[in-house]
């Protein structure tokens, strides 16, 4: 699971959970994979992102040093910034671990890079 996916994911589906966001990450295996840099795409994603949640996720997986704490002005033309965002959004990947609901503490296992968001019947 890449952090771009994590940035969009919630545990609001659990009965009684209000926001369920952002999900905590406890990772036992994190990979960094080379992914083609597409500045236009990254630039278009920036306004859709929850930046503080991205910073928190980067911190959880030990890659916060590579990410600016805030979105810079005129990021569209700032290649250095876009490259850093690209790296954290698309190249850092949680392979094994858990996503943790911030309200209920419910854990969603990540196996082979795929988060399992399925709930038990009594949770929906």
């Amino acid at each position, binding site marked *: *699971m*890449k952090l*771009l*996916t994590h940035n*969009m*994911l*919630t545990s*609001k*589906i659990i009965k009684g959970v209000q926001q369920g*966001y952002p999900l905590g990450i406890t990772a036992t295996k994190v990979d960094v*994979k*080379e*992914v*083609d840099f*597409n500045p*236009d*795409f990254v630039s*278009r*994603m920036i306004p*859709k992102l929850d930046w503080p949640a991205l910073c928190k996720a980067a911190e959880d997986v030990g890659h916060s040093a590579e990410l600016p704490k805030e979105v810079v002005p005129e990021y569209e033309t700032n290649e250095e910034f876009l490259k850093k965002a690209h790296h954290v959004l*698309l190249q850092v990947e949680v392979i094994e671990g858990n996503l943790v609901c911030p309200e209920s503490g419910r854990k969603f296992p990540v196996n*082979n*890079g*795929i*988060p*399992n*968001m*399925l*709930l038990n019947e009594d949770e*929906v």
Partner: protein
Amino acid sequence: MSTPLKIPKVLLEQYATTTHIAACMLHTIQTRYGDIEGKLVADLGCGCGVLGVGAAMLGCGYLIGFDIDEDALEIFKGNLKDFEIDNVDLIQTDVNSSLSESNFKKSFDTVIMNPPFGTKHNPGMDMLFLRSALDISSNAVYSLHKTSTREHIKKKASDWGVELEVVAELRFDLPNTYKFHKKQSVDIEVDFIRFSHTAKKRR
């Protein structure tokens, strides 16, 4: 060719999208509407990823595949590795119960899907998928539905305030996938439909 599922599960209506149909769909989505290249795309009920892998090959910005079935997702994962695709992520989830309520609301530019038609054990399943797809998309949803249900789908689209365009009528060749299939192979008529949110915006 991507690897298909070895033992399809009847309850999930796992009829594979043939690579030919997938290629025709994706080619049209890109060349006629420009809705793949550089876009944030979701593939609902992605299965082994015939549509998802194709969309990645056509240069989508990023794609997330959603499916309930772990085995299908593992095969999708293997296909990604084989094709050296690195901008696709997969989530195991129940498309019907979990997507509308989630933070994925309106995030995706484009949703592509070949939903379960809802014929055998899951009546109305394709419409539940469609509702989720519309909830998480900001621009367009591309989907396949049985031609025999076209009027019903038109009415639903109108109720939901989205535009509908039948892009093509396909003949879907369902090979003898499951034990209850008596014939070797059966052709069914399927509509390839584009749903768009533009009507809503113009109002």
